């Protein structure tokens, strides 16, 4: 379990994290959602030891990450950041082997090689093992980094906006991978993300943040509610139930939305497809609904999560 205990962080006089206390359950997928500037990434940096908080502490299974030895923490927590630019020219194999550094200090043991092969096989990267990272597509490179994180063989995986720059297909594949890592390998995953529907579909636990504080935390059913989302995102988001999965329909402000209970999701989507082209695009609208991009709700990507 990751315990965040009264963490506060300030940049100058601006408080970006305000006395955050949280417990992230082990063996689960936890998503951290919230609008831009909510402090998600700062919290992520604090937990992954990239940033020393102004106050408070973070423990991972009782180990204080700020004071513990570097390799000690790296054997428990593996981190994937959203910016994966590497200056050095590396092959996929080189990169994945770096995951073993906390265990071997760079001197690979037979066990290390076995773990590396396992990670490569798990992500179907074997045909690409000798390719240089700059010869890979974005999705393939992302997979290579995940293989590195898995080769690190930690109980905890921290992923900072892994869906950024991925199309829907790759986003769904990415989240299925995270789901599998938790279900099949018994890992604990903490994922920072923007898309509430991906969070709802793939996680067991959602933490919603706003203005440097945790607004709500709980199961997707507890968080995916109109009033909670209104509070977090300052937006009227209607929540639909699709085969037990709760999906938020975010709308351009002011659009005529039928009362949620009165309509079937299919009608809503059909209506959206007709309505959208006539409406001028709104400035600053962060998301287009996932659903409007897929013609039929039967093929909604998030639908085949579990």
């Amino acid at each position, binding site marked *: 379990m990751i315990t965040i205990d009264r963490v506060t962080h300030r940049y100058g006089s601006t408080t970006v994290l305000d006395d955050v206390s949280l417990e992230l359950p082990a063996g689960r997928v936890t998503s951290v959602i919230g609008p831009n500037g909510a402090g998600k990434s700062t919290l992520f940096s604090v937990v992954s030891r990239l940033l020393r908080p102004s106050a408070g502490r973070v423990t991972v299974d009782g180990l204080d990450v700020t004071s513990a030895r570097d390799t000690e923490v790296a*054997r428990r*927590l593996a981190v994937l*950041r959203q910016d994966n630019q*590497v*200056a050095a020219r*590396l*092959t996929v194999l080189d990169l994945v082997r770096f995951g073993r*550094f906390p265990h071997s200090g760079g001197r690979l043991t037979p066990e290390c090689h076995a773990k590396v092969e396992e990670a490569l096989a798990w992500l179907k990267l074997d045909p690409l093992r000798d390719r240089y990272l700059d*010869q890979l597509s974005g999705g393939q490179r992302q997979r290579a980094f995940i293989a590195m994180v898995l080769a*690190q063989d930690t109980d905890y995986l921290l992923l900072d906006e892994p869906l950024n720059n991925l199309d829907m297909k790759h986003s769904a594949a990415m989240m299925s991978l995270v789901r599998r890592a938790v279900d099949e390998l018994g890992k604990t995953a903490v994922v920072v993300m923007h898309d509430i529907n991906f969070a709802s579909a793939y996680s067991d636990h959602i933490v919603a943040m706003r203005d440097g504080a945790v607004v709500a935390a709980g199961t997707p059913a507890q968080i995916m509610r109109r009033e909670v989302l209104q509070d977090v995102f300052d937006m009227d988001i209607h929540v639909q139930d699709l085969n037990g999965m709760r999906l938020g329909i975010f709308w351009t402000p002011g659009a005529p939305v039928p009362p949620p209970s009165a309509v079937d999701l299919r009608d809503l989507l059909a209506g959206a497809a007709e309505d959208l082209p006539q409406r001028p695009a709104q400035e600053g609208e962060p998301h287009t609904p996932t659903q409007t991009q897929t013609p039929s709700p039967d093929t909604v990507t998030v639908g085949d999560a579990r």
Partner: protein
Amino acid sequence: MTTIAPAPSRDTSPDAPATEQQRLARTRAVVVVLAVLVAAACTAYLLYDVRGSWSYAMDLRTRQLAALLITGAAVGASSLVFQTVAGSRILTPSVMGFDALYMLIQTVIVYTLGSAAFLALTPGQHFLIDALLLTVFGWLLFTWLFRRSSRNLLMLVLVGVVLGSFFASLTSLSSRLLSPDDFLTLQDVMFASFSTADPELLWTAGAVTVLGIAALVPLGRRLDVVALGHDPAVTLGVSFHRTVRITLAVTTLLVAAATALVGPMLFLGLVVANLARQLVPTHRHAVLLPVSILVGVLTCVAGQLVVVHVFDLTTTLSVVVNLVGGLYFLRLLMRTVLL
């Protein structure tokens, strides 16, 4: 290294990427060829076209060769690891204003002591003063730079350029205040020279270089990780800032020793470290470091051979290196869209 059985799905087309085994074989071949070339160049330097007293020639040439070896090794090793901690292939200590700092120190010494006192210094004293000042100021400069901009590359390059010009302007200002005699004395130390090296100095500089390189060897694996950048290094359990600090301290010491011994060699490190990275297809410092040292030594010895026997000493090694290196630097800048 355990070998891994190739998977059946492996790409076997002709333009398939080189396998790990192929890259290892290439690395070994490069190291062997470099070692042979270095040995050949050193032998040629000692034995080629000896005229007059054999023992005099041997004594002089051994000392010159030692100076070349020390410079090549120190510059090769320090530039390579400096690039790693700076996270860029176009940054070396010289590019970041180290040579300009050396010039400034020389000018200030001549200006404050006068050329008589400057010339009265024994080579040992001279070396000590230079090396000490360079180490102290260089280390302050680099740690300050890296703390302020923490690997913001564009910022580092800009600050390096600005500092370089700043030191150069200060140098030119204070050299204008010198008497013509003092100015001539100063001109002598502004260009690297291998022709006469004091044996005592060679021992000191040699010892510093050997110790410095020995200190870098155990850092190798951590430097491999540091090359990934700050965030990945930290999450892989490497104390990034500590490694960078130690590396910068050793680097400063190495460059200071080499520069105090022979004078500034602006683009030597840049050429050498980049050639080393191009020659061997690996990111591992356990390989890159020795290759960079070999390339550095080869460049110095072979370059000096050409200067002595082809150009009949009408030019100097530093002029040749700076000309070739300058062009190479421009090419690197042109090719690297993102700095």
